[in-house]
């Protein structure tokens, strides 16, 4: 699987291990698959507590935990130019050819992409979430995104709905946006050897219990379903501000023996919770691409979900419902009726064919090839792109980029590139037979060592 063109990629995001989440898993698994394809991948993120400096993860993945503390919701303090020296050093040391930033909400990503463009590197940006247009936070975020994407080489979105959303928010031409979905680790999420027996039907819910994930819908739906079907039980995993409401609902309808609240479920135990059920319920109000549904389907559960965002595109065997309690109860009813016809092993095998991280890595490689073929542009040509961002914003963005350029030149005089030591390439000799499942097992062991 050697490549004629070996890329040297720097992944930048505020969200990485030891945090767990969609973006974190995506970066890690994508990096592992790219390493397998023969590319060099380095990850840059901020320090997590005491975890600061350079660390190596499975497969020789080098992670720079830059000593900047997060200040708000896992984001580093945006200082515009403060990260320029360290990013320049990393880019020169590792001889990076391409910078790949993740998640629009990450300040480190925006800063890194800005500095990388100033220094002439090609950049790729992946957007993982959907945002609105109307509230104050979204308006500012969209302006920042417009700035970053004004001069990006290529962009990747995780679903077609996300592509539409990103194109509208940032004003990018649609041809520049590639749709490469996330995948699911089918080796880890295997169905149980035997289905949970008994005549009880167990519905599993695992999500953060916040407003965005539809915890309020759960509060309305669970009592109704329990009333209609005496043999249905619920298992609710996850924690959050809405947990109190769910506990209150449990008390009010006396469902203590029918609704089990597990609290926060560590990532390594998600599979064991999933295989104890028959149906998976997802009630989110907005979702760019729901990996939870794929994990549940890979474990052989039948999924019931709200029809929002990119959920209809993720899988065809989902029972969809409008985000309305009555509709969701109907959907659960339909799911219970078709449950006997579902074979968990069948669903798992199907999922193996439909989603694969290696496929995602190959498609991402194509995006990298296109990005590197983009023409080099001088500062003046790039400034004209920023001017289109708005009457006042365009000029402000140009000013920011000009100052960045000047600071970069000063840095070149102060610390010439020849003085920065280049890291030699270390090729780990790994078994060709070593499957990716062993990598993920190692990943899980890393988790438990936290």
């Amino acid at each position, binding site marked *: 699987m050697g490549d004629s063109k070996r890329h040297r990629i720097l992944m930048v995001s505020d969200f990485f291990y030891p945090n767990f989440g969609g973006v974190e898993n995506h970066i890690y698994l994508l990096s592992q698959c790219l390493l397998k394809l023969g590319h060099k991948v380095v990850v840059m993120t901020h320090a997590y507590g005491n975890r600061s400096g350079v660390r190596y993860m499975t497969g020789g993945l080098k992670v720079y935990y830059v000593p900047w503390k997060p200040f708000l919701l896992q984001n580093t303090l945006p200082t515009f130019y403060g990260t320029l020296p360290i990013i320049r050093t990393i880019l020169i040391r590792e001889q990076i050819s391409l910078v790949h930033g993740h998640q629009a909400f990450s300040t480190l990503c925006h800063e890194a992409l800005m500095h990388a463009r100033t220094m002439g590197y090609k950049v790729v940006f992946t957007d993982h979430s*959907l945002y*609105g*247009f*109307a509230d104050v936070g979204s308006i500012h975020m969209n302006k920042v995104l417009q700035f970053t994407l004004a001069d990006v080489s290529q962009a990747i979105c*995780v*679903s*077609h*709905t*996300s*592509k*539409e*959303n990103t*194109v*509208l928010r940032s004003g990018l031409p*649609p*041809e*520049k*946006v*590639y*749709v*490469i*979905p996330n995948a699911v680790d089918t080796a880890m999420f295997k169905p149980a050897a035997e289905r949970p027996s008994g005549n009880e039907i167990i519905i599993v819910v695992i999500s953060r219990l916040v407003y*965005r994930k*539809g915890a*309020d*819908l759960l509060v*309305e739906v669970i009592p109704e379903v329990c009333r209609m079907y005496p043999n249905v039980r619920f298992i609710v995993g996850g924690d959050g501000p809405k947990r109190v*409401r769910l506990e209150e609902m449990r008390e009010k309808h006396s469902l203590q023996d029918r609704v089990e609240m597990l609290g926060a479920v560590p990532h390594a135990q998600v599979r064991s919770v999933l295989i104890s059920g028959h149906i998976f319920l997802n009630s989110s*109000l*907005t979702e760019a*691409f729901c990996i939870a549904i794929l994990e549940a389907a890979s474990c052989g559960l039948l999924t019931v979900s*709200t029809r*929002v*965002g*990119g959920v*209809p*595109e*993720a*899988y*065809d065997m989902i029972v*969809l419902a409008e*985000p*309305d*309690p009555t509709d969701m109860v109907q959907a659960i009813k339909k799911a219970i009726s078709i449950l006997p016809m579902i074979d968990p092993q069948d669903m798992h095998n199907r999922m193996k*064919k*439909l*989603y*694969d991280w290696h*496929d995602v890595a190959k*498609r991402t490689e*194509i*995006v990298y090839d296109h990005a590197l073929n983009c023409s080099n542009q001088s500062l003046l040509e790039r400034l004209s792109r920023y001017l289109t961002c708005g009457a006042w914003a365009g000029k402000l963005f140009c000013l920011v980029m000009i100052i960045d350029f000047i600071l970069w030149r000063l840095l070149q005089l102060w610390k010439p590139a020849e003085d920065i030591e280049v890291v030699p390439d270390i090729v780990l000799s790994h078994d060709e037979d070593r499957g990716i499942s062993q990598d993920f097992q190692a990943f899980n062991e890393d988790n438990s060592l936290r």
Partner: protein
Amino acid sequence: MDNCIAENPSPTRAKWRKVAYGGMQPGFDDNHTDECFLEGMVMNANVVKRDMLKVMQDAISISQYLCIVVLVGLVWTYTLRSTLDESSLLYLDVSLLGSGFLVLLLTEEMLSLNLLLHYLVNVFFFTTGLFVLAPIYQTLTRSISSDTIWAVTVSLVILHLFLHDYSGSTVTAPGALKNPTLTSSISLNASVVASVFIASRLPSRLQVFAIMLFSLQVFLFAPLVTYCIKKYSFRLHLCFSFSLMAMTLAFVYTLHRLLFVLLLGLLVFVTVVCPYWLIRMQEYKFEINGPWDEAKLCFDITD
């Protein structure tokens, strides 16, 4: 689930589908943009088309309230200059109270004798309370310089005007459905504090009582009275507003020329320029909705 169908240039090329599973679709790149791109986008779905005349009529409520506040300011100025003495102030208070009640009686359909008695008892308690507490107001700000008092009063009145609820009234009849919002409560409190500051500058106790009663009457009940007039008959509301504006302009003219010009300019700005500006800005409105929106819950969350 929508299945977008692409055109078939050749029989062997499969149709493009708007799905994420199954890897790269054969024959299509990952950045393929189909004709059904942005098909689900809905623009300006909830935008209401405004009519210039209607907006101007609504703006009259704002200028009417502005004039009421200016009249209160005038009474304050005359009292502080000792042009207006206690007895005339007290006559003014009683006449305002009487006319307010008359308007309420004539315009409110569901006013029963019980409710009226309830109102009268409340007003009696209110007045007695103010009379008893008047000595406290009189000595409240004795140690503070006059400049501070004028500055704070003016800022509080401006705050009151900015945050005031012009569509309804904060003090409502008992049994009203809408709760007052935070900003309308803040504006009411600002006006009350401004009245207290002005009252504390007066020399005699009776004057303090009279001016407090006048200010509180106007700030607490004028919105309710004007709201009842507007609800009853729109033409009456328009006549009332125009006569109020004329009266205010006349009084300010006799007081100070510059203030008259400023007030006239402000009234023209609020009644004519602002509606025109609003209608001009409406064409830039671009509201986007689509499948990426966060779903709205159709039920209320009751904790």
